[in-house]
């Protein structure tokens, strides 16, 4: 069956690919050393003194900082999502599979965890451990766990109600087999959608934390940090407050669009609707 790709998938794919590309390029090359201070040429405008996007309050190259910032952003996104998936998916899967007391326990714990706003958790973590990228990633990742567990449980329960699972149980398929053979493959798309959405939220959360000085440590380029530093210079160099924000916004947009697109692509209801009308 041939289907038109959802436009959000294309737009999101392009944006995400762009971020990934920039991050990859930045690991080998940036126009200048992003941490190189050049006070004499600070606050250069666009194109001035050879700074394509200008320079910041310490004379660092804005473009190089942005490129290197993409690297940080992607790293945070990947690590948090991996943490959340690695913990949340098995928990949700087991809850759906076994039900009963286990499910009850998993759900209650995740209810309580959900009551902690992710950022509050991250602030707590920053206080308990040293503020830094690792702490931020761990906090955000843990904050995501309940939502993954819930989504996987919800989708898993639907799978468990399907007749093919009943048939498999009729043959005596064990929990492990049900999980590997039926549950995980069928909630896979849900996980992918959730992961892209989580990725977008992680980017936002990291930016907020870095802005507060609780995320990425200075010395490592980060969009949130750049915005924090730019705030003092809004009157002199308003663009310093625009570039990193745009980068954050576009990356988040990219991942949200990608998530939407994948959902549209995989949503059986939509497929049904297309076939019906």
């Amino acid at each position, binding site marked *: 069956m041939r289907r038109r790709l959802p436009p959000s998938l294309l737009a999101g794919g392009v944006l995400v690919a762009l971020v990934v590309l920039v991050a990859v390029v930045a690991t080998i090359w940036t126009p200048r050393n992003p941490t190189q*201070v050049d006070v004499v040429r600070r606050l250069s405008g666009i194109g001035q003194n050879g700074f394509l996007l200008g320079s910041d*309050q310490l004379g660092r190259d804005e473009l190089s900082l942005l490129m290197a910032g993409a690297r940080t952003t992607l790293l945070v996104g990947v690590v948090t999502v991996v943490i959340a998936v690695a913990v949340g998916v098995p928990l949700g899967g087991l809850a759906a599979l076994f039900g009963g007391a286990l499910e009850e326990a998993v759900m209650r714990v995740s209810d309580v965890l959900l009551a902690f706003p992710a950022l509050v958790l991250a602030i707590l973590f920053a206080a308990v451990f040293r*503020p*830094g990228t690792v702490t931020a990633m761990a906090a955000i990742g843990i904050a995501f766990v309940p939502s993954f567990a819930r989504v996987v449980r919800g989708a898993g329960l639907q799978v468990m109600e399907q007749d093919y699972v009943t048939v498999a149980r009729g043959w005596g398929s064990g929990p492990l087999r049900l999980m590997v053979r039926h549950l995980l493959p069928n909630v896979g798309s849900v996980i992918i959608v959730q992961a892209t959405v989580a990725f977008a939220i992680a980017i936002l959360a990291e930016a907020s934390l870095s802005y507060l000085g609780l995320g990425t440590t*200075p*010395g490592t380029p980060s969009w949130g940090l750049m915005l924090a530093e730019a705030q*003092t210079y809004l*009157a002199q160099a308003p663009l310093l407050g625009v570039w990193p924000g745009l980068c954050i916004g576009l990356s988040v947009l990219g991942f949200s669009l990608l998530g939407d697109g994948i959902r549209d692509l995989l949503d059986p209801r939509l497929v049904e609707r297309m076939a019906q009308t």
Partner: protein
Amino acid sequence: MTAGFTRREFLRWGGAGVAGLAAAELVAACGAEGTGRVRKDTLTVGIVQEPTSLDPTADATASIALLLRDNVYEGLVRLSPNGEVLPQLATSWQRQDNVYTFHLTPEARWHDGTPFTAQDVKFSFDRAMNPSTRPPNPHADYWEPVQSVDVVDPHTIRVTLKEYSFNFLFHMGAGSASIVSPRTIATDATHPIGTGPFRFQSWNHGASLTLVRNDAYWGRKARLRKVVFRFITDPTAMNDALLTGGLDAIGQVEGTQQLAAFKSNPRFRVMEGQPVGKVIVTINNASGPLRDLRVRRALSRAVNRRSWIEGIWNGYAVPIGSHACPNQGEPYYIDTTSINPYDPAQARQLLQAAGYGSGLTLRLAPISDFAYSMQGAEILQSELQEVGVKVTQQPVRFAEWLATIFTGPQNFDLTIVDHVEERDIGNYGNPAYYWHYDNPTLAGWLRQADADPDQTSRNALYAKIQRTIAEDAVNIFVASPHSLAVTAADVRGYPSGAVSPSLYLADTYFA
């Protein structure tokens, strides 16, 4: 530990008014008084850091003294904005060798109406000196030279020192040397009772603190009826508040990048004061490669002071070469900036000679509460990278800095901090001090200098001390930032020097 190195001093730059020349303004303004229109009599001052408590002996936060010392609380003496010792509760005093006799004003009354007596001074000083009653504000060293405090009569008190101390009287102007009432000390944290020209009215946490004129003041009464301190942490917001009329004065200007705008605007007056404080990159002299003089010298030479002064203070700072700054509070200052000039090539050679030609990695712990420290870290990282030294940053909150770097395990290589305290060069005589500089000869010179009543020989000795510290490249000495204040154009008599720990507003008024 004898070091009087406290939060207050660090925060004076970070959180308090950096004042400047004020006395001249004060006199000049007197004639301009009202011609019919209603005189404004409430002054609103923007303050970056809110005090944590209103008891000047409670803890080391600089803004406690900034707002309350000389306004609400008084001491035996006070410091002028430029660091001269002026009479306060002690209207006069004599020194005979090691013994000071202070004559107290008989008219002073506490804000609760009880009379002020010499007993109150003895209570305050004994409390500060006795380890079991000593309040948390850690200025024990101010009373270190003191042998005993005796009440001669209700209005005379005698302080006997162990030996002559050049710095003793100066320190009696500090916030923690405020005289507190034994009857109200327990509640001073929230309802301060002092003897000063203003009395406390209200404290709206997170927003403002209000003082009103003490009409029963024993001395010259304040000219303002009311003073409101508004707490605004963000420098841009602070500047905006002044621009939009929400403030009459900024206690201290952090957003120096906007200073030009105020300077060119006739509605405002910018007061540039003396340089105050010593911003240094502290080197842990006991840590591995940093024990090597060549390495320390190399680090010093890798730093371009002009970059820092431009990048952080937009030019409002002067370079320093040793642990002293050119203001009247440190009269012994000499210029030592040529001892370790900016020279990356030589820095690289020195590192090569020390065996670190192939690279060196150092840990840097800037203090995240202070913008200068964080910005300095970025510059330092870049500059050291140029000479082949890799820096890994781990910012710490000030509280953590105190616990882990200043007093704690001291497991660090470099940190960046502003030593705002005046006349604190004595710390180089203490081998346990957090930079771990162990030089017994220099320690001897320091003791000798403090006990020397003769200004010429004392200053010569202090000059030798400053040079030695610079030559040993104990720390990287960067700059002394100017004290800066901005007020509305019609504000007169605003103190604009920051050698004094207080923002004394009794002489301030509107034109």
